[in-house]
């Protein structure tokens, strides 16, 4: 089965499907729901990091009998189920982190609700053994990758480089905070909210309420105002809380977070610490890598094991090693749980290796470009997990294009003698889709359905959150079916109406789910056998084209040995950053930024570039201005006034281009695009700042005050 180029829709910048609603203000986000007779919900949270609840008192002057008050005891199963079942939806007795939910209140008057929240006093017996640093608390998960004889290979090296790299937490700052509205009809719960994985919420709610039948839970995704991983696991808790209050109230409830609550309580990017030891020959041939990658998992397991896994799987960078050992460890602390954030561990480990590569080139007296080139992975090379690369990474071509775009050699030559100016680069890869056997376990399904009016509906649980799902799937289906793209409709993800095509995460939507949409379109095309859709529908009724995930041939991952092909495909890229340091304040300004990527076939250039540019800006923010200040494990700068994301005046001109190297098993040849933009800016900016200051740095965010202190 294949549709050969030239394509009618693939590769075309078809306009964003929901664009008109978004520019007219007509899109409905969760907070835009108007529901009669609805109560407002509020969460009462812990003010300590670890301890036992001794007493909860309800102060005077509040008409408590008007309030709905819910506790852990009201939940049939007090758990937010994800990978493990260690996280309660509400604290029963023991608090594990600040801002942990303890009580829920609901009232029709939002103002009175705030007064009531302030009138509640919780007394604790504080446990002073709380852990706040990586390594202080218990080990949550550990992975090991070993290939070759590491110590013997180090003994053969002329040069051994060692450094410790650190990255800070990062807050997502989707402009729309978390929120849900919900109501029960009999034993069935209806929830609408801002989230990226309807079926994660479905499973968590069904489990917490002990419901037997999948059909008792209906989760709808409202237009979602940004997510970036921040609405992957966290919304499950908000949904359970909303449903619990609604059940106790017997009325609809809305729980919409304000900015400060959202920033304080929601998940963030895992802080990391990477100890690297790299051995090479004096002429720059890499031989041995010893990588000890550690992350702060926070108080509960949530997604940390898989973040850790993706982290070490990307920790060896786009290079060939004779021997490599990568150890990953996730440690518990008494911080609110860290969670998914675009890149999912890979930006942290790639930050370490790519910062080290530039520092090591400097140590060797080599050009950072040529040093990297000498060691790039090529087709057939074997990764530390034993996976032989089937596709050609084309790294030389990607790097050439990046250097040309940035006019790198001239620019570098011009900048080199000028104090406080620098140019830095990074080269990186990102695995498409779930790690290891993840896609096999997900067993995603999609459906295309005929309609009486001759149109076709795409039914998937993959969500639109700005990146373009609603537009690219109709492009793919229309291409196969030979329909007008406007005749392929996208159904709003709702668990009662769409099959489970898996979560909208892991750079999987266009490539993995897009492939399923492509196959489902072929399935439908086969059934139609040339009959126009309206005619076929009139005779046979609604007809489905369906597809279920099948691993590409030869793709195998051994969970027990932690070896095999971790990803079916990799995207690749180069970033170049040009910076200026203010000599008085030491504030780094990124002046220009370039990126060239191979994301396979580019389905929609405008949407793809837009997504990549936004990811680069987030990466620049992570490296420069985004400083999560923690106190007893919890973020204290929980406002947009003191947690700074790039504004128009901070974000540099960003130049992006692609090299298209299609992947046979991705939707029309596409590979992952969502996360790779986050991988390169951290080290590229750090390397540029290191050049500007004439000394190697090892930590992001780069904080001007700290540079002044040094």
């Amino acid at each position, binding site marked *: 089965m294949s549709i050969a180029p030239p394509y009618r829709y693939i590769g075309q910048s078809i306009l964003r499907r929901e664009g*008109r609603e*978004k520019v007219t*203000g007509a899109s409905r986000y969760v907070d835009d729901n108007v529901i009669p007779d609805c109560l407002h919900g509020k969460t009462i949270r812990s003010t300590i990091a670890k301890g036992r609840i001794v007493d909860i008192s309800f102060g005077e002057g509040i008409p408590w009998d008007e309030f709905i008050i819910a506790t852990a005891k009201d939940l049939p199963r007090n758990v937010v189920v994800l990978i493990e079942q260690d996280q309660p939806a509400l604290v029963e007795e023991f608090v594990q982190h600040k801002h942990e939910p303890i009580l829920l209140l609901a009232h029709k008057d939002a103002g009175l609700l705030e007064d009531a929240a302030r009138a509640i006093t919780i007394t604790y017996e504080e446990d002073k053994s709380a852990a706040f640093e990586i390594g202080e608390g218990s080990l949550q998960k550990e992975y090991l990758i070993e290939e070759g004889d590491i110590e013997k290979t180090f003994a053969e090296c002329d040069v051994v480089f060692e450094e410790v790299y650190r990255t800070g937490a990062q807050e997502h700052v989707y402009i729309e905070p978390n929120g849900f509205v919900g109501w029960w009809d009999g034993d069935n719960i209806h929830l609408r909210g801002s989230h990226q994985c309807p079926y994660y919420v479905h499973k968590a709610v069904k489990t917490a309420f002990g419901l037997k039948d999948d059909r008792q839970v209906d989760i709808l995704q409202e237009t979602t105002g940004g997510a970036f991983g921040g609405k992957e696991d966290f919304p499950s808790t908000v949904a359970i809380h909303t449903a619990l209050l609604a059940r106790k109230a017997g009325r609809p409830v809305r729980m919409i977070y304000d*900015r400060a609550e959202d920033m304080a309580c929601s998940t963030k990017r895992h802080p990391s610490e990477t100890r690297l030891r790299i051995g090479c020959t004096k002429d720059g041939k890499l031989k041995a890598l010893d990588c000890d990658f550690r992350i702060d998992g926070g108080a509960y397991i949530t997604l940390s094991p898989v973040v850790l896994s993706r982290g070490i799987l990307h920790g060896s960078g786009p290079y060939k090693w004779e021997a490599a050992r990568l150890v990953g460890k996730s440690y518990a602390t008494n911080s609110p749980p860290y969670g998914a954030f675009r890149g999912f561990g890979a930006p942290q480990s790639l930050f370490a290796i790519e910062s080290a590569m530039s520092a090591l080139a400097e140590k060797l007296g080599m050009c950072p470009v040529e040093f990297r080139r000498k060691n790039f992975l090529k087709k057939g090379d074997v990764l530390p997990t034993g996976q032989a690369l089937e596709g050609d990474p084309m790294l030389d071509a990607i790097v050439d294009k990046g250097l040309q775009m940035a006019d790198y050699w001239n620019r570098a030559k011009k900048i080199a003698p000028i104090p406080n100016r620098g140019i830095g680069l990074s080269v990186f890869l990102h695995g498409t889709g779930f790690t290891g056997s993840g896609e096999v376990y997900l067993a995603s399904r999609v459906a295309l359905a005929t309609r009486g009016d001759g149109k076709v509906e795409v039914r998937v649980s993959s969500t639109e959150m700005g990146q373009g799902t609603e537009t690219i799937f109709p492009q793919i289906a229309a291409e196969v079916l030979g329909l007008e793209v406007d005749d392929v409709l996208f159904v709003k993800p709702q668990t009662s109406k769409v099959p489970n095509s898996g979560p909208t995460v892991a750079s999987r939507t266009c490539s993995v789910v897009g492939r399923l949409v492509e196959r489902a379109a072929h399935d439908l095309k086969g059934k139609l056998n040339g009959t126009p859709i309206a005619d076929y529908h009139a005779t046979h009724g609604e007809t489905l084209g369906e597809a279920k995930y099948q691993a590409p041939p030869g793709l195998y991952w051994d969970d027990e040995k932690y070896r095999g092909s971790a990803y079916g495909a990799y995207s690749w890229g180069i970033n170049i950053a040009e910076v200026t340091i203010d000599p008085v304040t030491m504030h780094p300004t990124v002046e220009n930024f370039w990126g060239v990527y191979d994301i396979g076939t580019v389905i929609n250039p*405008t949407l793809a570039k*837009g997504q990549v540019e936004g990811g680069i800006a987030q990466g620049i923010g992570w490296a420069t201005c985004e400083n999560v200040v923690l106190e007893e494990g919890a973020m204290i700068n929980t406002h947009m*006034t003191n947690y700074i994301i790039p504004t*128009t*005046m901070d974000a540099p001109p960003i130049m992006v281009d692609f090299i298209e190297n299609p992947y046979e098993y991705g939707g029309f040849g596409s590979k992952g695009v969502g996360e790779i933009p986050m991988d390169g800016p951290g080290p590229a900016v750090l390397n540029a700042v290191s050049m500007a200051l004439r000394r190697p740095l090892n930590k992001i965010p780069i904080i001007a005050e700290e540079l002044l202190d040094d």
Partner: protein
Amino acid sequence: MTEPIRLKLNGKEVDLHSHPMTPLLHALRNEELSPGTKYGCGEGECGACTVLLNGDAVMSCMVPLCQAEGAEVETVEGLCIDGELHPLQEAFICEGGAQCGICTPGMLMSALYFLRQPEKAPGGVREALEGNLCRCTGYTRIYQSVERAIGEAAGK
């Protein structure tokens, strides 16, 4: 009960019944007059709630309702007239200026202010939009959108 506060919203007189000190943002949203005006931070940082008040771009979360009494308020809902999109709206669709869309209404209103009074932002579009945060786009496509609309207005 206090007297309702009357203002002109997108050219139409309306009475608002919220408390006079309610931020204009919440009054407009709670009274279902402008669901398109968005909350992002509530403290004048993100710009998602930007509206035009007597022609000036303001963050409606920072303006008490009483201050808008008798004023002309323009919101995103007023841009599209009789189904005809404003050139800025067209441009945001064509150039990919809207992604998740939550910052878009505020971004459009700041851009509209810039279109009408470009002299207020001598540094150009980048300066004109410095009060509006976007987390999706990295701003490049938003600049292109605004520049396209400016080009069209100039008949290019």
